[in-house]
């Protein structure tokens, strides 16, 4: 991706526009159609929750936004995915640059077997940044954003693996934030955490939406209801319903959505 394009991607002035757009998206793994024609618009600085039973395509759809599916054998995409109006599946797009703009947090905390400091500074270092003062500032700032700073400020050189699961997950979010993305994708970020750590991550997500556009895949209905502005319900590769979270959880339009959120199927 050329420099001009990069600046477009992190343009935060387009708050009211659609940050992410999917147009007629179909995904195939060889002959299996995992996503069956989805159109969706996601606004900037909002939290969008993807819900649906296992295998419904929500994670596949999430991973389209930072091209994480590219490595899967037999993966094929039809339609287009736009970020700030730019098709990210165009040939000239620099995928590494794209992933800097679109950070991702996974189900299981996956810190590198390095120090806390190194974990957060990693993304910046591989970009070639060597200025120690700048790196330290970034590390402190990122750790503060995820409210981990007070807990680790005296242990920055200790191994990240010594942290608790909840702390590790917040560290992974800090690592994502350090490279200044504009979008954060979260794939069940709290499913391996205890309720207290979950609550901290949820509060964090709520704070982060001021600066970032967040998409979260979750199996926890109450979590989706608590933290997201809009909720999308997927089933068998189709987008069944996509509406404000309030509407989805109080009076969904579709019977299928209601059956799923009330725990009657899925």
């Amino acid at each position, binding site marked *: 991706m050329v420099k001009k394009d990069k600046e477009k991607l992190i343009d935060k002035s387009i708050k009211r526009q659609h940050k992410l757009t999917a147009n007629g998206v179909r995904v195939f793994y060889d002959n299996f159609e995992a996503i069956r024609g989805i159109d969706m618009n996601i606004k900037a600085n909002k939290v969008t929750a993807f819900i649906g039973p296992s295998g419904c395509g929500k994670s596949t759809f999430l991973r389209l936004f930072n091209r994480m599916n590219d490595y899967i054998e037999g993966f094929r995409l039809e339609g287009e995915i736009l970020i700030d109006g730019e098709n990210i599946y165009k040939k000239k797009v620099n995928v590494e640059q794209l992933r800097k703009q679109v950070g991702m947090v996974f189900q299981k905390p996956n810190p590198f077997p390095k120090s806390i400091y190194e974990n957060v500074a990693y993304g910046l270092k591989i970009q070639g940044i060597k200025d120690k003062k700048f790196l330290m500032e970034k590390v402190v700032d990122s750790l503060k954003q995820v409210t981990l700073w007070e807990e680790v400020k005296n242990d920055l050189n200790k191994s990240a693996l010594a942290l608790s699961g909840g702390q590790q997950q917040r560290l992974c979010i800090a690592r994502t934030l350090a490279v200044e993305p504009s979008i954060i994708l979260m794939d069940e970020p709290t499913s391996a955490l205890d309720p207290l750590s979950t609550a901290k991550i949820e509060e964090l997500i709520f704070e982060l939406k001021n600066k970032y556009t967040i998409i979260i895949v979750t199996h926890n*209905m109450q979590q989706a209801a608590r933290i997201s502005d809009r909720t999308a319900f997927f089933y068998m590769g189709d987008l069944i319903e996509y509406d404000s979270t309030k509407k989805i*959880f*109080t*009076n969904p*339009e579709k019977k299928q959505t*209601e059956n799923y*959120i009330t725990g009657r199927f899925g």
Partner: protein
Amino acid sequence: MISLDQHKDALNQSGIEMLELCKKQLSNAREAFFSHDSDLAEEVLHTENRVNALDLKIDRDCERFIALHNPVASDLRFVLALRKINFDLERVGDHAFGISNYIVEIDTPISQDLLDEMKVEEMFDAALSMLDDITGAYISTDTKKARKVFKKDKTLNKININAFSIIAKGVKRDPLLIEQYLLLFSVIKKLERIGDLVTNIAEEIIFFREAEVLKHRKRKGTRKKKDE
């Protein structure tokens, strides 16, 4: 472990039981009132304990349902509606109790002319028919039936408003009848309140079925369509 659907079914059954019980209380109070049957009135007074016990049971079960199942959407609306319906039904039971209490306390029956003049029987019938409507609406979850009560409540309100001038004239005509008039006025007030409570219940049934809030809305007859 009790599943959400089993728990919801049990709650629904308790709701039906409460509706039937309160309807029976009011119809017994009506019969005792017109036949001046103090034994039947006593029975209503005794049965009030059952109404109160069922009220507490439903409250407790609703609390458990919310705590155990974290209901959302129609399940949540159901349990929220049931709590309010239960509360209102308990009040209907209280009014039936109050009316029966008068029958036990007073010695002489009220004259038929007075009853006809004040349209008390019409009020009882309207209130009971409203209770029938909401019972049907609750069981079959037919909101059309629930909407019927809004019109019937107007009949009750009208009789209640007219009662005031009838009593004023009547008392001037024959001051000795003041006690009977006052008693009738109390009964009319109670029946009018029952009408309001049943209207609230109808609103709750509509809220539960259609997610439409009619509370404090002046025109309740119009209906929103929902895509199923």
